[in-house]
């Protein structure tokens, strides 16, 4: 270390009081004490600033910007290293003595001034020395030195080799000297393609639902529902419930028929059953004999399939339900079965769950009383659906009359049915039965609400026929109707002018027309 300690005193020594001693100018220049001091001060300020920032973060509970902090830290770190180097140089030039000895540091001064190592450091030092001179302690000193030197050379050689190997491997892997790998690890094409494909699948599943849709034949709830759905969805005995097939299949007959067939059964309203219609057997192909207890005749291809499936579904049900549903079916048939287009079915499905509930209270015998009192007017009213209901209502308070009639018959049990039916205005069939006040029928059903004239003429076809013949008559009797309703009926009337035999296709067309009309 160059530059010894040079003290020059400007005044003769020994004179009280001793003045501040100045250092040798050369030393000062060499060591650049001023700059070291300023650097130390600036470092101190930087560190305190960072600490303040941390305090602020802690107080306000915000997350620090780690990039900034790391940057500051690295800067401070570098500065610290430089200063420590400079200070090392400086401190070697000086000897530090405590100037003030007072009560505070009197106790600690001897310890600080002693050059003896701390006990732990001393033992540490000893053990290291032992380790080092293990083999060579016995030999004379020059030989010890030689041996140690040989050891150092060997270690140096090993280090050089290791470094050489590291450099080679770095080159082999393309590592830079300080940066990371210069080329990114690429996946081979196959792997990349697989990942791309998986990604597309996943994104499509999340955003579109692609790949998660079940085929139509699997869209039945066969397993037990999870707890959060168990009380939301109602499942009836047959395992079908208010579950709906997606709209894509709305026109595919097979699918819809399957699903709708069972649900249809629950939907049919209670209406005059068997007894009245025993006498009438329609010659028309698509009318069903009301006498058949459970099975539905298939009058036409479309009906055929529907009823076949209904029949198959009927078979699955337990007996009492079959009976119930059969009766319901008969009533349903009267009102709207024929020509029911496939598009209509979807609108009926959702009522299944509710009607199922409601119809649990129905008993077979209750349906009978309904039929008997049905006079001309009442039957007509009953058969009418939404739009046509207005016809009947304007005929002079039909509904109260009908209600009165109905209420007469409703014993305890009947009233249950009646009130329960009234309680579910959304059901389509129930209004047919009793609560005509509730005009909440799906518009599509309107076209099938044929106003019959005779309770015995239960078939829709017959009713249509009647309407054909009576349409003008009806229009006349319902002279109070607003124009709109007349037009509605006019449409039907017009359609019904065609051949009775071809009524069903017309009804189908009508259905489709109506299908589009409300929209």
């Amino acid at each position, binding site marked *: 270390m160059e530059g010894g300690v040079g003290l020059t005193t400007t005044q003769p020594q020994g004179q009280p009081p001793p003045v501040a001693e100045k250092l040798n100018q050369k030393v000062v220049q060499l060591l650049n004490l001023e700059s070291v001091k300023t650097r130390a001060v600036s470092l101190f300020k930087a560190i305190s600033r960072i600490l303040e920032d941390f305090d602020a973060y802690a107080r306000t509970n915000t*997350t620090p910007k780690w990039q900034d902090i790391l940057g500051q830290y690295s800067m401070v770190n570098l500065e610290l290293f430089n200063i420590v180097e400079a200070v090392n140089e400086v401190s070697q030039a000086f000897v530090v003595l405590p100037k003030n000895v007072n009560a505070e540091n009197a106790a600690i001064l001897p310890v600080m001034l002693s050059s003896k190592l701390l006990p732990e450091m001393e033992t540490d030092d000893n053990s290291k020395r032992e380790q080092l001179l293990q083999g060579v302690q016995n030999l004379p000193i020059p030989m010890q030195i030689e041996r140690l030197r040989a050891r150092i050379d060997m270690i140096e050689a090993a280090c050089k080799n290791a470094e050489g190997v590291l450099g080679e491997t770095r080159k082999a892997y393309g590592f830079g000297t300080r940066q990371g790998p210069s080329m*990114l*690890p*690429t*996946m081979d094409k196959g792997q*990349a393609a697989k*990942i*791309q494909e*998986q*990604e*597309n*699948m*996943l*994104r499509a*599943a*999340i*955003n579109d*639902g692609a*790949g*998660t*849709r*079940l085929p139509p034949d*699997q*869209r*039945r*709830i*066969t*397993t037990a*529902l*999870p*707890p*959060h*759905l168990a*009380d*939301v*969805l109602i499942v009836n005995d047959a395992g079908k419930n*208010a*579950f*709906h*097939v*997606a*709209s894509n299949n*709305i026109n595919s007959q097979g699918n819809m028929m399957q699903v709708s067939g069972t649900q249809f059964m629950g939907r049919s309203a209670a209406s005059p059953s068997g007894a009245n219609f025993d006498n009438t057997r329609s010659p028309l192909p698509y009318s069903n004999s009301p006498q058949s207890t459970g099975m539905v005749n298939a009058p036409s291809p479309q009906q055929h399939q529907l009823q076949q499936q209904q029949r198959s579904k009927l078979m699955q049900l337990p007996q009492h339900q079959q009976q119930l549903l059969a009766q319901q079916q008969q009533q349903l048939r009267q009102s709207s079965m024929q020509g029911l287009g496939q*598009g209509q079915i*979807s*609108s009926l499905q*959702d*009522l299944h*769950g*509710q009607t199922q509930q409601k119809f649990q209270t129905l008993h077979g015998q209750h349906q009978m009383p309904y039929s008997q009192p049905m006079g001309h007017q009442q039957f007509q009213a009953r058969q009418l659906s939404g739009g046509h209901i207005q016809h009947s209502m304007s005929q002079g308070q039909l509904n109260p009359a009908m209600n009165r009639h109905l209420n007469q018959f409703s014993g305890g049990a009947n009233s249950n049915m009646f009130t329960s039916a009234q309680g579910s205005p*959304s059901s389509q069939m129930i209004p047919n039965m009793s609560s005509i006040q509730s005009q909440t029928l799906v518009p*599509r059903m309107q076209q099938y609400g044929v106003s019959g004239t005779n309770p015995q003429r239960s078939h829709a076809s017959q009713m249509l026929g009647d309407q054909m013949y009576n349409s003008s008559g009806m229009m006349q009797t319902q002279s109070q109707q607003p124009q709109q309703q007349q037009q509605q009926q006019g449409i039907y009337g017009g359609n019904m002018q065609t051949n009775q035999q071809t009524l069903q296709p017309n009804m189908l067309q009508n259905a489709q027309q109506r*299908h589009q009309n409300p*929209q």
Partner: protein
Amino acid sequence: MECVVQGIIETQHVEALEILLQGLCGVQRERLRVHELCLKSGPNLGVVSSEVRLLCDLDQPEPTWTVKHVGGAMRGAGADQISVMVRTMIESKVSKNALRMFYALGYKLDHELLKVGFAFHFQRIAHISVSVSSVNKMPKVHAIDEAVPVTPGMQIVDVTAPATPENYSEVAAAVSSFCEFLAPLVHLSKPFISTGVVPTAAAAAASLMSDGGGTTL
């Protein structure tokens, strides 16, 4: 309205992503287990079919239902400049009768998904939610216990933040700046744009999972 970005991550790196998110967000993670039922309206209900999603949060002791309608995304030159997707979204909590009501209205089940994973919700200029989940489909209707992942080796990362028409640009900026922090592990982009995985994700994951290995001075 919401700002949303999506990305994919390999299942092996999900744990590292969780550590990264824990460090960035500063909140506890929440388990995510959502049964999503997507209902579509049939052609009888309108000219254009509409879609409604019912989400049932199965993680709570009492399942909570949410109805969500996702609309179309913002389009145009302005939208192209924003790196997140801004789209209309309406969400509301509903009672468990919502499903029955939608069926009664004429909606039909289009598809259903089960999402299992975790999520972080925190506030950084906007209320940002990050969720990492595996998407499962059900082989039978509503058979949650039999759900299998659509892509076993890959999970989806969703970053969403609700926005209003007045502040969506700030929210979008907040979301995109947050996404930069996740860049080492996952590339995030608008939902219908595929991104691929991050090639160096393995190295980033390794560094996140290790305890750091500090050097002593």
